[in-house]
């Protein structure tokens, strides 16, 4: 038999990232920068919702956006054109999620970042469209938000429990198409609260802007709380 030595490791694959994320959050706290991690399936309306939200807040606070797309800068350009705020592309190198290290790298690439008096009050990270991996990797964000759109169905909290359990707010988007789908809002809320009793649920229509005020106000309040 071959002679081998066994070295015990006993270490979670997420451990290093969790530590890096906590360190990043600590640094953001010192600088008074609020980082929001926005997640969803592809196409549920992250970019559209961001544009609506930013246009409601940009006169009150300084905002910057980081777009994590696997391989394009379409969204980063769209945000820049529609809102005028700084918006950069993060390259995930083919990865299905962002981790704390990549997020920190992105933050350091923001132009008007980390020079104290000019720090943005709010940085929004549009994560890769995917309900599995982003939930497992803490980005260092202060709060997590996700968007579930009506066509995806109200059973998603049952199928992707981890994602719903880590989100502080769940935005239900595309309320305008409700009549065409069998989406059950009450059931959806019930399932979300089974996973996460503390989650705030906000129905919106990003296309028309209906309900976006509620989300924008939630965000503004969180940003103010973080600075205290």
């Amino acid at each position, binding site marked *: 038999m071959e002679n081998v030595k066994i070295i015990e490791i006993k270490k979670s*694959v997420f451990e290093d990232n969790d530590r890096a994320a906590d360190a990043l959050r600590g640094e953001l706290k010192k600088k008074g920068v609020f980082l929001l991690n926005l997640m969803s399936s592809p196409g549920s309306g992250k970019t559209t919702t961001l544009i609506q939200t930013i246009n409601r807040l940009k006169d009150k606070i300084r905002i910057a956006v980081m777009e994590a797309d696997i391989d394009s800068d379409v969204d980063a350009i769209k945000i820049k054109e529609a809102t005028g705020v700084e918006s950069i592309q993060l390259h995930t190198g083919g990865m299905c999620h962002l981790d704390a290290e990549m997020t920190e790298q992105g933050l350091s690439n923001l132009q008007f970042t980390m020079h104290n008096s000019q720090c943005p009050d709010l940085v929004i990270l549009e994560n890769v469209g995917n309900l599995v991996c982003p939930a497992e990797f803490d980005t260092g964000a202060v709060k997590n938000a996700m968007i579930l759109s009506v066509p995806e169905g109200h059973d998603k909290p049952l199928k992707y429990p981890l994602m719903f359990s880590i989100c502080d707010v769940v935005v239900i988007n595309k309320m305008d198409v409700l009549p065409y789908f069998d989406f059950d809002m009450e059931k959806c809320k019930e399932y979300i609260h089974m996973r996460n009793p503390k989650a705030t649920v906000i129905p919106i229509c990003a296309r028309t802007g209906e309900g976006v005020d509620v989300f924008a106000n939630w965000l503004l309040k969180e940003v103010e709380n973080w600075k205290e």
Partner: protein
Amino acid sequence: MHELGIVFYIIRDVKKAAQENGVEHVSAVVMNIGEVSTIIPEYLTDCWRWAADKEEMLKGCELKIEPIPAVTHCDGCGKDYPTVAHGKKCPHCGSEQTWLLRGNEVEIKEIVVPQNK
């Protein structure tokens, strides 16, 4: 592509551990993977083969998976039950005040290195 991302983290951790222990080649990595961790073992080993062979230290290194069954604990009646069969609702008393005791691990248990005595 979920599993490929995980594989990159495993490789990073294993290389670090190997360096710390003065190891030049690793012949096997043993993982503890929880039943409800969202990792599909076959995908993980496929991605591992592809990525590990690109690393000098891990050429031919085998990824062994030891599954950990998922167990949920019920606060209602204090009993434990298998998560996959019953989900969130306790089969003993019907309570939904339950929480996952184990089964979502994605953990590197140990590495195996050849010894030439």
